[in-house]
């Protein structure tokens, strides 16, 4: 759940016209501790936008960046599309799973990390690439990957 003042602020900045629904959902989601939209937050948004709650849920389930399930503090997105695929992104995923001791679609026991396999996010020139929040890291090997993960442990 996101704190009330924060929700109010997001809605205040974006406005409540329908074209701002997706951006509002994205911002509420990233303001939440575990990168998801809780029922309370969805209800808040439905009320502010004046649209039924079931439509909010329909939208959340349609768009792959949105989640109704708690995920983790940091989502590590691993690209599985063409450029990353041919530059052996699968090995990168295995390394990551190995370092964190979890599989894609799972969170570490402290909920600090969650791994998600995703489609191309436009960092193909740095393949194989990962995205953590809005930060993109590319051309990775095990050493670089470990360094990056450690930075997020400390943070």
């Amino acid at each position, binding site marked *: 759940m996101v704190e009330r003042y924060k929700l109010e602020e997001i809605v205040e900045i974006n406005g409540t016209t*329908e074209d701002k629904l997706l951006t509002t959902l994205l911002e509420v989601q990233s303001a939440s501790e575990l990168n998801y939209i809780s029922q309370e937050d969805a209800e808040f948004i439905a009320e502010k936008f004046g649209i039924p709650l079931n*439509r909010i849920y329909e939208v959340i389930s349609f768009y792959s960046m949105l989640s109704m399930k708690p995920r983790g503090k940091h989502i590590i997105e691993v690209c599985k599309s*063409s450029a990353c695929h041919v530059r052996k992104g699968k090995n990168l995923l295995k390394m990551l799973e190995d370092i964190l001791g979890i599989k894609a679609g799972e969170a570490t026991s402290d909920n600090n990390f969650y791994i998600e396999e995703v489609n191309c996010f*436009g960092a193909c020139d740095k*393949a194989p690439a990962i995205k953590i929040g809005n930060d993109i890291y590319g051309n990775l090997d095990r050493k670089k990957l470990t360094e990056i993960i450690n930075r997020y442990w400390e943070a």
Partner: protein
Amino acid sequence: MVEELKILTGYCGRYNYASVKEYVSLGGYQGLKKALAMKPEDVINEVIVSNLMGRGGAAYPTGEKWDMISRIDNDPKYIVCNADEGEPGTFKDKKLIYNDPMKIIEGMTIAAYAISSKKGYIYIRGEYREGYYRLKEAIRSAKAAGYLGVSILGTTLDFDIEVVSGAGAYVCGENSALCESIEGKSGRPRLKPPYIKNVGIYGQPTLVNNVETFSCIPYIIEKGGKNYASIGTESSAGTKLVSVSGNVKNPGVFEIPFGVTLREIVYGLAGGVEDGNVLKFVQMGGASGACFTDSDLDTPLDYKALRSKRISIGSGAIVVADQTNCAVDYALMTMEFFLHESCGKCTPCREGNAQLCRILKNLVLGTANEKQVRHLENISQLMMKASSCGLGKAAPTAVLTLYSNFKEEFLEHVEGYCRTGSCNISRKKAVV
């Protein structure tokens, strides 16, 4: 060696993306100033003369589209810049959005004047969050400097732009799904007709063009449609951005005049195949594009020349795969993309994607039989004919072209053998 020709990307990285002043000092906004002194129909005529084709994938003539919308008598009309850039392997719009947003805004404003629109949207994929904020900032400064808002540059033109974010759905790049998504709904393509140009956002006439398309407009108006048409080839005017990635030494976005060969792009600009490996195939246009081998690389980048080889430029993505890659595994990866991204509304696409995935999965597990392999073609043909939108129609392209180029390799998988050892069979078993 082939060189880039930067008539579109020349300002990239040379000004602060939110500074109108710096953009103007480089020569920005000359196109808009000139357009505002012309009649709207003359602006459209320049675009027609330029022979500019839409850069979002379908290569529809831009001037013709503008002309048709300008004649529709129904206000308000909306303008949408498609910045959804979802085709895997494509990152060229990102370059323009992050580094030269003012040019996109200028191009859209010229379009607004030409077709008489007061409101524009830039629909940007959710993954480009930083781009979303940059565009908003650029719009804010353009407004503050009188280049957007009411009576732009002291004329009677009123035009404003809003940035709308997607949230991760490839199908939203399809223009009717895009309209749905802008209205805050799930992005399922609409049945057509009616077409978006007549019935788009909130039921009103809507012009949709790609980021790169809008970015070409200021140059065309400033220098003239004839000048633009003289660049490139007879059938393909101007320059094109290509995103080259995969197993190449020097991946990146390159701006080249049409007519340069694919070999010059892959081996010249992108430095050729990395690690001393050999090129196996190239996929052009993203996941929905064709896969072809070295023998097609001498084809020039030209809509007509490529069409004769059944290759579409699509989004301008060029992904290079070397010989360490398994053709079947690549086909599976591509189909899993479409299975995930299909909106599920029509059966040929929803079921076809699932069937193709199942067969390809069995192939990389070594459990498929020859009959199933033959089904790949039938299912693909059906999807191409019967799917309702472009997603389902184009989804099997990679499977079909990989199968026709690497038939032997597909059949080897039936025998439980992969020559590359890189798919799930992962081991080069002796053929039994």
